[in-house]
């Protein structure tokens, strides 16, 4: 989505993202409308059918998506507002990608070990803190979450092999 106009180089324009999101919104509306139609969006023998209400919701979503698409399309040539620059986007990925990996880790090895690793690694790599300080913060958060949820409020969170080894 980068274009060749000097200052806007290596950045995404808001109007382009607007177009893409409008298409997605329209598609979601179409899915909602289609599925409601499939269920029956009219008047059954005993009153409104299951798809009666959501069908119109889907229709409205489609209309809004289409209008926003046209509005953005009109401004496509003129609007140069930047949605996100490459540098900003990189910053966003710095937290977004590790977070996604972290959620995967929660599923794989439980929340406590993943949280400890996530906080420690993020602090030391993204924040350039020393290993000791990073690990201390990670351990503190992880341990206090454990005490609060497992012991205090008795709400079980996802656990993995390490917790099992310790007898939980």
């Amino acid at each position: 989505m980068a274009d060749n106009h000097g200052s806007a180089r290596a950045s995404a324009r808001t109007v382009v993202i607007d177009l893409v999101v409008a298409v997605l919104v329209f598609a979601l509306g179409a899915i909602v409308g289609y599925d409601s139609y499939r269920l029956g969006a009219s008047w059954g023998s005993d009153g409104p059918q299951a798809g009666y209400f959501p069908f119109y919701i889907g229709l409205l979503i489609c209309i809004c998506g289409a209008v926003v698409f046209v509005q953005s399309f009109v401004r496509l040539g003129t609007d140069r507002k930047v949605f996100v620059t490459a540098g900003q986007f990189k910053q966003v990925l710095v937290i977004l990608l590790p977070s996604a990996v972290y959620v995967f880790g929660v599923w794989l090895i439980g929340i406590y070990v993943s949280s400890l690793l996530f906080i420690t690694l993020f602090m030391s790599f993204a924040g350039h803190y020393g290993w000791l300080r990073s690990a201390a913060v990670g351990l503190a958060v992880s341990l206090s979450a454990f005490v609060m949820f497992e012991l205090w409020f008795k709400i079980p969170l996802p656990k993995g092999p390490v917790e099992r080894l310790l007898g939980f």
Partner: protein
Amino acid sequence: MEEINALFHGFTVALTPFNLMLMFVGIILGVIIGVLPGLGGANGVAILLPLTFSMPPTSAIIMLSCIYWGALFGGAITSILFNIPGEPWSVATTFDGYPMAQQGRAGEALTGAFTSSFVGALVAVLMFTFLAPLIANFALQFGPPEFFAVYLLTFCSFVGTGKGNPFKIVASMMLGFAMAAVGIDIVTGQLRLTFGFTELLSGFHFLVAVIGLFGIGEILLSMEEGLSFSGHGARINPTIVLQTWAKLPRYWATSIRSCLIGCWMGIIPGGATPASFMSYGVARQMSREGAKFGTGQLEGVVAPETAAHAAGTSALLPMITLGIPGSPTAAVLLGGLMIWGLQPGPLLFVEQKDFVWGLIASMYLGNIAGLIVVLTMVPLFAAILRVPFPIIAPVIVVICAIGAYTVKNNMLDVWMMVVFGVVGYAFRKLDYPLAPMVLALVLGDSAESSFRQSMLIAQGDLRVFFSNWLVGSLTGLALVALFWPLLSAGITRLRAALAAGPG
């Protein structure tokens, strides 16, 4: 007088040592949530909601509403010291609050902000005490068409009063309704919009959406600005507090105006933010020192804070009396009520007297506790704000993940949270408002069932929404609210035409 008795009964409910402790815990948590990026009022309450499932509902709502008061107070701290509004309604507080901090008058600005917040809240609670039973009593006559008309009014006024592209507001709202429809249809038992995924049977939980949209979205947005921000130090000592209190009575007229604006706008959904701006604008026009606004006038802090807090408090009025929340945080509280097995709405005043009056009493006590906490602990909260972002960011992601998981003990929700986070980030940047989406997600099922019941009563005739004066005027109001921008533009043009015309 009946209200006074009920209120005193409420105080006896709220004033147990356990509830008082929860009140202070709630306020402190709330302020912390209010000052941290990524943990606003709605999101913070959503994360802490599962912790309250084991408490009695009255204690739970006391703690959660205190978190809400705390977050309202906390928003002012970040606005004044860091020029970063913690909540949307504290944006107007930065206009004069931050210049005051730059001039070294942070203590004065904070004291002014906290005290006027307290005044605004107190007036709103007083209004609440006497108005809520009346509205609830009145709403007891409501049938499904009336309820649907009130829902319609709520959502239409979002479109009419919202700034920005109305189609984006409607798109965001309707996506919320669509998400609410996912899962088993309660009337026919059919599966809707699940496409064969058994995980979608129970639908999208709004708490997960709130945590993702507001929490993760906010973190992503803050990361754009890089990993550093700086703020002014703050010290509040009794002398500054007393000096500021001595100055405040001078602004009594501004206070009264701001309270009225706040109370009125709070009942209308999404009202706290416009209320704070409107109140700032009105104060600037009416004040003798209006020209100096923006350079660090105490009055410029008093006006928006009073209105925002009054509006934030009155946002609970439609939530309790009609089951229709006026703000995302109120929507989360409403969701909490449903989870505790309480049906919000007019019957609450008949069936759950202890709960309702305990809550109202806790509004008085909670705001007093809040004022004490924020005035004494400002340095601590300012210190939390100075914790570097590389530490805060992953910790908040962890807290959000735990919050999303505990909603239903479901791993899929944690993934959904990340997806909602990306959606929240994109929507925020593209000016799709998030509040209507959350409200629609919470109210979707109730709005749909009241619509279907009305349709059943009327055999599919839409004229049922104009069938008597009550429902007719509600629907009419909703339509006026929906087309308000067009109407007001038309009126202005008509006036201009009349003025320019001959004779």
